[in-house]
């Protein structure tokens, strides 16, 4: 084994320019894969809260009567696709709004009073896709100011991130293929520069595995180092996200943050892809050039 590691090490050093090119390509492609996975998980985290939280809010005109409001409330609860509704008073909504603006702007807006603030019915639906139907049905009812539902925004956000993810993955795939080609090439080069040694080794009866292992190790090291660089990039991304959201619990960035376990899954995926690329590239190069 020490023979194999020594050989692999000296091969890597001898072809260091090619080695660096291969490692960088692996690193860049895996960083993109990591970023795509990261984005996916983040968006999924951010939208889950909305998905499982309130689906639709019926805002009442501040001057609407209590009768008008309960008529709407009764009708809402009778709908089969509405799971539950919670009535929020003007004072409650005023406090929420004040807190929101405070966290957003650093100071509370003084222009509003509880009397100007609408009361609301916040409803959770059995099927969030029915939000649009509720909006159409209730918007023109007496006492209703407005019906808002975040599913459209979620849909837009998911669309945008889906395109971003897809383009990240396509570019990453192209780069992974070129990384594979580069690894095959560096190993081919290493075998070529050692062809004399290899022919003597075959002649004196070294086993095929003994000849192959140093070259395979070389490819594996390239994939592994590339993956480690990509892991660092994703960790920096995660750290940047944390810093940017800075504990602002209402911002989308904060909601996107990944749990430790989710991050670990992405990092392990990157590591595995790196190892597979390295092993695959070297196995291919060795198979074609060493087997007689």
């Amino acid at each position: 084994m020490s023979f194999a590691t020594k050989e692999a090490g000296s091969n890597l050093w001898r072809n260091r320019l090619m080695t660096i090119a291969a490692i960088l390509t692996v690193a860049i492609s895996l960083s993109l894969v990591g970023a795509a996975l990261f984005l996916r998980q983040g968006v999924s985290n951010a939208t889950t809260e909305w998905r499982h939280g309130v689906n639709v809010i019926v805002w009442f005109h501040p001057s609407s009567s209590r009768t008008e409001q309960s008529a709407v409330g009764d009708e809402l609860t009778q709908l089969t696709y509405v799971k539950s509704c919670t009535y929020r008073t003007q004072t409650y909504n005023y406090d929420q709004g004040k807190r929101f603006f405070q966290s957003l702007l650093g100071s509370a807006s003084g222009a509003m009073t509880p009397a100007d603030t609408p009361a609301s019915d916040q409803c959770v639906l059995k099927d969030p896709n029915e939000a649009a139907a509720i909006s159409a049905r209730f918007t023109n009812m007496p006492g209703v100011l407005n019906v808002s539902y975040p599913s459209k925004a979620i849909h837009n956000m998911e669309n945008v991130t889906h395109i971003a993810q897809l383009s990240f993955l396509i570019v990453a795939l192209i780069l992974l293929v070129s990384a594979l080609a580069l690894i095959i090439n560096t190993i081919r080069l290493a075998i070529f520069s050692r062809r004399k040694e290899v022919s003597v080794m075959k002649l004196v009866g070294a086993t095929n595995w003994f000849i192959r292992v140093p070259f395979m190790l070389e490819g594996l090291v390239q994939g592994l180092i590339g993956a480690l660089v990509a892991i660092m990039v994703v960790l920096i991304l995660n750290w940047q996200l944390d810093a940017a959201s800075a504990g602002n619990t209402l911002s989308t960035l904060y909601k996107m943050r990944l749990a430790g376990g989710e991050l670990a899954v992405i990092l392990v995926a990157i590591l595995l892809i790196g190892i597979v690329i390295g092993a695959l590239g070297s196995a291919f190069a060795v198979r074609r050039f060493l087997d007689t």
Partner: protein
Amino acid sequence: MITLESVTKTYKTGTVALKDVSMDISKGEFVFLVGASGAGKSTLMALILREELPDDGRIWVAGRNLANLPRWRVPYLRRNIGCVFQDFRLLPTKTVFENVAFALQVIGRPHHQIEKQVPQVLDLVGLASKAKNMPDELSGGEQQRVAIARAFVNRPLILIADEPTGNLDPSTSKDIVQLLDRINKSGTTVVVATHDANIVDTMRKRVIELDNGEVVRDQNRGVYDVDIDDSSGMSARDLVAHSRGRRG
């Protein structure tokens, strides 16, 4: 030690390299394989090393039927066969000692065994004092001795040499062949393919002559060219018939 039974080898290009060749080389024999270029000597060597497989016929080397030998066993077969070539094939970046040690390293021999066997074999070929030299600091004859040391360090049952004196002057050639003879005396079967009439004639060992892929002569205590050998009294054709009768 080496047995060929009706071996035929045709290359993809259509060239017939060996035609119905049979021979039997016993343990401890010293055999010269002679014949013009293209007579089939190199093909024969490649078949013995199992670099090639015959189209027809059977080959046994060191007790193994090569047709039944799985691919992964081939390296183990080669550990029984030492190989020497016209162009030495030494590694230029390694010292004499390292070149010989390399042959043991790559078959996984332990360090202490390498430290013991390499000096022994360098002593045998008379190069103990040059262990630390690089190959390009040595003469052609010395380089071939290193190659022989490398081929022999693992004490193979068979040593085959393809034109070992092809690049050497006559007196150096004689030394090399005498070294091969000494190795033969230790019990190793030696097969030397050569063009060198001089060494064949001085050694008077068994000579197998190939011509156009066929064995045309198999003669004990033979010489290079049968036409100038007045001691035989037999034509090449007679000798072939004789040897076929003896061995077939």
